Structure formats: structure tokens, C-alpha cells
């Protein structure tokens, strides 16, 4: 309870400084008068009593400072005063202040950007089951041949090889494959004359099972979809789905797409 009382008193001291100052003066004057009266009662003259009382009191400012120091609000006032002094000093040299502020802004901005990236790429967990167990072999993106352009075959595995690994994962719990290139396919939008183009990634049937990723609606691609030769299955990501489609019919001549 005294913490609350101290807080209330401190706030009162901060905002009613004059009233608090008046009370302190009144108390000090009362002390002096009582002291003078007592000394005169003991036989001192008025002048001697006054001098003795003043000597006893010492510096009234020092006494008031001691009284004020009893509360936390003095430290707040001192801090506030230091802050104002600092700002005034900085405003007196605007060139230096500008350079300092810009340097700080640059440093803070750069660090924020870097750590945001680190958080997203390294620290944030993937929205799949047991992300720490997930490993991608080969880091090829954009490898292979597309539209007649050979983009290199580094770190690529053939579909045949991928199928074999999926069938017999060996030391791995399970395996799935995904394509290195993201082509765009045409998607019909309901109630719209024009189709839209969406980037897709080719994945094997067990892809979502290996990822342990569950859909919000409907189902993901399953091994059955891979086995059906003339059917196509599309699994839409949440981000893409919010753009246009309520229910989209995807058309591309029977190829498996995700």
C-alpha cells in the first residue's frame, strides 16, 4: 500500500510543485519559530534566539533538498531537466545533430532490415509438421530446360530417380519431389471472360504428405493424382487464392500441376 501512496504523493509533488513548496516553507518556518520561542523561554534575547535557530537550521535550501530527495519524483525531475538540457545543446549545433541522427537512422534501419530477413528465413518455423526434420536435396531453382532455353542441370535429379527414392526412401522417413522451374498456367475464373495466369510448381504425389501440411479447405495433392495419367490436380495456396478465385477450373491438357 505504501508503494501506491508513494506513487500518489510523488505525482502530487510533480504536478503541484508550488503547493508542496509552500508546505515545506511553512514547516521550516514553523520549526524555526518554535526553536526561537523555546530559546527565548530559556533566557536568550530575541536576536540571540533568532541567530541560534538559524545556525541550527543551516541552509534552508539544503534542508528542502533533503526533504525532496525522499521521493522518487526528484529523480524524474532531474532526468527531465537533463533531457531538456541535452535537447537544447543539440539544437545549438544543428549540423552535428543532423549527421548524428542520420547515422543512427541508417544503422537502425539496416539492422532492422537484416534481422527481419533473418527472422523470416532462419528463425521463423515453416508452417509444416516437424520442420526441423525437413531437408531439401539440391538447391537448384530455375535449373533445367524451359522453352528451349537450357538453364543448366546442376543439383537436379531426374523424375525417374525421384520416383525410385520415393518408393524406397532408405534411411529417410519419406521423400517427395518438386520441380525446379515454376511455369505459369492458365486458370479460368468464374464469371470472368479472361483466364488468369498463375505460377505453379510440379510436385510428386507424396509431396504434401512428406511436408505434413494440411489444407484449410478440401484436400491436397495425393499419390492417386500422380497415378492418374489424364487428370490434373491443382492445390491453391492461401495467398494466391485470395486474389481472384472462388472456384477455379484449371485447364492445361492433362498435366499434373500443383
Amino acid at each position, binding site marked *: *500500500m*505504501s508503494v501506491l501512496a508513494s506513487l500518489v504523493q510523488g505525482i502530487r509533488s510533480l504536478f503541484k510543485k508550488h503547493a508542496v513548496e509552500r508546505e515545506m516553507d511553512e*514547516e*521550516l518556518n*514553523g*520549526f524555526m519559530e518554535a*526553536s526561537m520561542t523555546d530559546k527565548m523561554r530559556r533566557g536568550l534575547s530575541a536576536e540571540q534566539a533568532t541567530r541560534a535557530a538559524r545556525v*541550527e537550521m543551516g541552509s534552508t535550501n*539544503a534542508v528542502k533538498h533533503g526533504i525532496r530527495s*525522499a521521493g522518487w519524483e526528484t529523480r524524474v525531475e532531474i532526468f527531465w531537466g537533463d533531457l531538456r538540457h541535452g535537447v537544447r545543446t543539440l539544437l545549438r549545433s544543428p549540423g552535428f545533430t543532423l549527421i548524428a541522427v542520420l547515422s543512427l537512422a541508417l544503422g537502425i534501419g539496416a539492422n532492422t532490415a537484416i534481422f527481419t530477413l533473418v527472422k523470416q528465413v532462419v528463425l521463423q518455423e515453416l508452417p509444416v509438421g516437424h520442420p526441423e526434420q525437413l531437408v531439401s536435396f539440391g538447391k537448384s531453382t530455375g535449373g533445367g530446360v524451359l522453352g528451349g532455353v537450357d538453364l543448366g542441370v546442376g543439383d537436379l535429379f531426374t523424375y525417374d530417380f525421384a520416383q525410385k527414392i520415393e518408393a524406397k526412401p532408405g534411411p529417410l522417413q519419406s521423400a517427395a519431389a518438386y520441380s525446379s522451374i515454376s511455369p505459369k498456367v492458365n486458370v479460368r475464373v468464374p464469371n470472368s471472360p479472361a483466364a488468369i495466369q498463375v505460377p505453379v510448381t510440379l510436385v510428386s504425389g507424396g509431396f504434401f504428405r512428406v511436408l505434413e501440411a494440411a489444407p484449410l479447405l478440401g484436400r491436397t495433392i495425393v499419390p492417386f493424382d500422380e497415378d492418374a495419367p489424364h487428370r490434373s490436380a491443382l492445390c491453391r495456396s492461401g495467398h494466391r487464392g485470395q486474389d481472384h478465385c472462388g472456384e477455379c477450373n484449371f485447364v492445361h491438357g492433362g498435366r499434373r500441376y500443383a
Partner: protein
Amino acid sequence: MGEKDVVQGTLEMLILKTLALEPMHGYGIATRIEQVSESVFRVNPGSLLPALARMERAGRVKSEWRASENNRRAKYYTLTVRGRKALTEEADSWNRQASAIARILEA
């Protein structure tokens, strides 16, 4: 008769003890301590008033403005429950320390 400041750390305990008898204003507390100690201790306002302010913040005493014996306005301090408890604790601690010092000196 030499007049000394109170033993360091004991001022609050002496104030609490003085107020345990009855509520008093600052000068009354200083006078009572001087009288009861037979002028061994004299408390100046530079020590007393800040100590009273600290104790008020700590909740050991509370203050109110009243008419004094001279019919002038004065700030009277009263001991609180927390103050009485603090007095008991500090007095016990002091007595323990004083006994220990006495034993060492007599040894």
C-alpha cells in the same frame, strides 16, 4: 557536555520511539530526543525533516496539519501500524547489536 549526532542508522528508530508515545511536530520530536537522551543527542532539522519525509513515504508515519500549542499551524506526525512494527524490529536488532558489542568490550 558534548552534543553529538545520533548513532548512524538509529535516527529513524529514535523518531519512531518518540512518536510511539504521542503524535508530535518536527520541533517537538527534536526536543524530546534531546531531553530524553539528556542532551547526548541533538537532532538538527537538516537530518530530522528529511528522515520524517522518508518515513512518510515508507508508510511508517503519516502527517497532518494541526494547530500547535502556540496556536500556530504545524505539521504533526503520527505513527502508523507499519511504523510500530518497524520500531519493534529495529529495537530488537539494536538490542542484539548492543549486547554483542558489550560482550566484546567486556571480554
